[in-house]
């Protein structure tokens, strides 16, 4: 589904990614771990199409096609979703209006009719019930005045409504208490199926108790230095990253 080949990327002449390779198949859950500044969030932003980065070498293929020339919205319309580490506030725009606009933009790109407000609310309420979240979330201004946990939960609600096939979770677990973590993890697990893949970026092994990865990769200094199964995460938890550096 997603294939990253020898990816080199800079920000303002500083080299961040230095030949990253990663292949994610249909229905697979991959986790990327690594110390601060290793390039984890950069990778998430580049996959979503943020313009601040310069790709100097390599390619990113999504369903066999290069996405490097695609705008962020084209990537989203193709089914790439990024749960932001720091979700953005947009005052005056209700969460439900925002989500309906987003969903209808995606539907339009596929030649489908837009959902009417009533149809959308029905869908959103179903999802919200399923995720055991509070309906009032829909009527509030997008992320404005949300607690850290509410923001992260809202990202998962958005994922569940927009229904992407490739979801990237950028440190969605950071700042969550154990209950919130469980709600987020349940949301992800409910969304998981044979056609939907995940890339879970995290600092802590803790999240991986709830979202069980098929593969764990360690990113250090802009390259993947080690890959393994979920036991690698446990090993990292006890040994840290230093044994993998240099």
């Amino acid at each position: 589904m997603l294939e990253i080949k020898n990816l080199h990327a800079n920000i303002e002449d500083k080299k961040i990614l230095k030949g990253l390779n990663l292949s994610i198949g249909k229905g697979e859950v991959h986790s990327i771990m690594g110390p601060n500044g290793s390039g984890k969030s950069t990778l998430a932003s580049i996959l979503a199409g943020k313009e601040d980065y310069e790709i100097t070498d390599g390619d990113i293929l999504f369903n066999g096609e290069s996405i490097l020339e695609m705008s962020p919205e084209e990537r989203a319309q193709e089914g790439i979703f990024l749960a932001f580490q720091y979700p953005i506030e947009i005052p005056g725009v209700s969460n439900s209006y925002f989500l309906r606009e987003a969903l209808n933009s995606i539907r339009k790109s596929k030649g489908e009719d837009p959902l009417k407000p009533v149809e959308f609310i029905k869908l959103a309420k179903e999802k919200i019930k399923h995720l055991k979240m509070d309906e009032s979330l829909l009527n509030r201004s997008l992320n404005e005045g949300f607690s850290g946990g509410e923001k992260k939960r809202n990202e998962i609600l958005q994922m569940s409504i927009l229904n992407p096939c490739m979801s990237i979770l950028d440190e969605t677990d950071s700042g969550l208490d154990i209950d919130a973590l469980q709600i987020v993890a349940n949301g992800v697990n409910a969304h998981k199926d044979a056609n939907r893949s995940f890339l879970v970026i995290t600092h802590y092994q803790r999240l991986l108790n709830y979202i069980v990865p098929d593969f764990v990769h360690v990113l250090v200094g802009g390259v993947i230095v080690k890959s393994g199964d979920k036991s690698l995460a446990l090993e990292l938890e006890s040994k840290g990253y230093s044994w993998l550096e240099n």
Partner: protein
Amino acid sequence: MREELKIDNDQATKEMLENEEYKYGFVTDVDQDVFPVGLNENVIREISKRKEEPEWLLKFRLNAYKKWLKMKEPNWAKLKVEKIDYNSMSYFATPKERPESLDDIDPEILETYDKLGIPLEEQKMLEGVAVDAVFDSVSLVTTFKDKLAELGIIFCSFSEAVKDHESLIKKYLGRVIPASDNYFAALNAAVFTDGSFVYVPKGVRCPMELSTYFRINAENTGQFERTLIIADEGSHVSYLEGCTAPKRSTSQLHAACVELLAHDDATIKYSTIQNWYPGDKNGKGGIYNFVTKRGNCVGKNSRISWTQVETGSAVTWKYPSCILTGDNSVGEFYSVALTNNWQQADTGTKMIHLGKNTKSTIVSKGISAGQGQNTYRGLVQVSENAQDARNYTQCDSILIGDKCGAHTFPYIEIKNPSAQLEHEATTSKVGEDQIFYCQQRGMSEEDALSLIVNGFCKEVFKELPFEFAVEAERLLSVSLEGSVG
């Protein structure tokens, strides 16, 4: 630099074709009777004669003209305006055939209003909205007049009101905005050609939105309309005006006056969607919008509320104000002003607290894009006798790009120590991270911008009648086109 307001038809047509963004920029080809350019006493006498006005009204005009001649254009606003040559424009333009009823209106004009989304044929009318349409200098038709008359509500063109309700006009004209109030108000008083008149009798709640649609069509003319709304004791009226004009390579002047008067326990809600032609991307052409709007809450417990959405015009200079004379009266001002490309706006309000327990609310939202310059200018004045006056002012600006500007000039004059005023102001930039967030969810950059800006304006849009709130959102999106990327 001095630009003559001259006729250049071929150029205008060419630019119309090149410049597709402003969809109301077409010209209607009708046989028009246009005065020769220039302004002098004879022109004013001729306007008055054509309109078969009584002697006192001619005197009102001439008196205003004499005062105007001695006045100077105001220069305190933060606006760069090319010198206006008042002798290079015509002060009266009318379709040659005066319609007696809808059937007599030139089909070309009917089509014009249709294109603007304002069908005049009553059966197609927007449910519950009565419309008066002003085409250049003349009011064409007022729909639903009979239905309103059953309740004693007068809604007609200003010219008709002068003929049919002379005593009311004589009593109220110039009472809120005296002829000598300011340069543009004096000019308007001298040469105003038409506009709307509304009178709502005691205790009547007007059952529908009243609406006027202003259209400048003739080239090389100024538009000077005058609107007067009187709400008698305990009455209630909501009024909306909309404005468009063809694209021209030269600037055109629009100097209107709107007077509102609310008696005891009366409410007037006045909403404006102003979408005059803003000029092209290089700042050429566009309407110069110099407008005086003022309401007087003369009665106890009366309320006047202004809501404006200003997206058009090359230059906007207007300060819809409230004089809170009656005890417990309330004044409100909700404003969205957008300046894109080379547009300039200097707009705001004056809240003059005279009565006891008077309250005012100001919510201003300025949006600047391109090279646009957006200024909020507001005065809150509390007089010695205005015991326990309250004001709340919120003044927010948002910037799109790095070549535009937002400016805020709040003035406060307090002469009574019991007054309580609150002022909040913010300036922000539309963040790249906000746009990226929306894009990551599948929206285009332009849709994202429009969503963010509409969210910013929400507090004002919710004050508009529902259908017009939808129109305002759409207009804002169109006006922002091309301001990203």
